[in-house]
């Protein structure tokens, strides 16, 4: 849910990285954190288990620059991907302005991708939102792995509607910023549309 503060002249938006367990959501945020100018980022918070699996969420505040005299800030969150953390996912999804779905390209994770995408649709619906009306970007992560499924197959399975999509390898940064820019752009366009102009 966007927050416009006229006093500090700031626009704040919330982006959530969604996807099955171990698909690379946290790795996306870590790459963004590592490669962003210190002046533009806040502290990255990871509420994780001892084995570094996300327990509640990761959080990274990011400033993108100014639009019409307003500082544009994005709060990036990840959800815990493991199936049994659904209650936490619902909480983090509240008030979201844009969603990145990080799909795991490994062929044996296709079912987990489909299940997680269905879970996203369900959880958005509980908030009265629909995926096709929410700023959304699909990221096909781990494209570098030898057991990656063919891209066309993944597109048909996960993104038949042809929403914005990117290939990525979050461990070496490929596609990470492209994904972020696309979702941020989509969020701002959506907010502009919602403002009735």
């Amino acid at each position, binding site marked *: 849910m966007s927050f416009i503060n006229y*006093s500090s002249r700031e626009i704040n938006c919330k982006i959530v990285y969604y996807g099955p367990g171990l698909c690379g959501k946290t790795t996306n945020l870590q790459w963004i954190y590592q490669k962003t100018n210190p002046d533009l980022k806040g502290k990255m918070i990871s509420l994780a288990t001892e084995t570094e699996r996300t327990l509640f969420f990761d959080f990274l505040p990011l400033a993108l620059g100014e639009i019409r005299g307003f500082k544009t800030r994005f709060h990036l969150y990840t959800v815990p991907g493991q199936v049994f953390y659904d209650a936490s996912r619902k909480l983090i999804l509240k008030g979201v302005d844009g969603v990145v779905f990080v799909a795991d390209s490994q062929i044996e994770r296709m079912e987990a991708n489909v299940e997680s995408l269905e879970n996203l649709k369900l959880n958005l619906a509980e908030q009265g939102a629909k995926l096709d009306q929410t700023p959304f970007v699909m990221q096909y992560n781990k494209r570098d792995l030898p057991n990656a499924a063919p891209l066309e197959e993944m597109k048909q399975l996960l993104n038949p509607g042809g929403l914005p999509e990117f290939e990525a390898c979050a461990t070496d940064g490929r596609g990470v910023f492209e994904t972020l820019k696309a979702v941020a752009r989509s969020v701002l366009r959506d907010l502009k549309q919602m403002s009735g102009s």
Partner: protein
Amino acid sequence: MHGNGLVIYDEDIRRIQVVVERLVRDANAKGVFVVDRNGQLISEAGEMRGLDTTSLASLTAGCIAATGGLAKLVGEEDFPVHFHQGQRDNLHITLVAKRIILVVIFDDRSSLGLVRLRVKKAGGELGKVFEEVQKKAEQDSASGAATPFSEITDDDIDNLFSA
């Protein structure tokens, strides 16, 4: 999805700031923070200004969200008051008007009883301010009033990413 976005104007911030600064004094608090339920910091006062307030806001909202989930599990609507006791500093967190979180950090110069008492009054005042903020937002939305977003052009958005 964005119909209920929070819009706060200068005069609202000034009114909130008056309440927050008074609460710091009345409760002998080290710091007072007003946070939106979605984790955005709205206002702060006190001697803790060097604190990472963005993280504080996000974690407080996460805390309220998690205990709100717990409340529903046991058949409560919410747990609107939280108290975390530390060795030196303590945290008193209150959910105001179901939307705003009031965080008070205090040490042994104050007491839980005093903080509770002062928070009750300040919470009532903040509740009124945010009710008006909400009403104003609904009126603006109904009348199609301009927001910073309505002035943004596609070029502005593209320029943000051109660097």
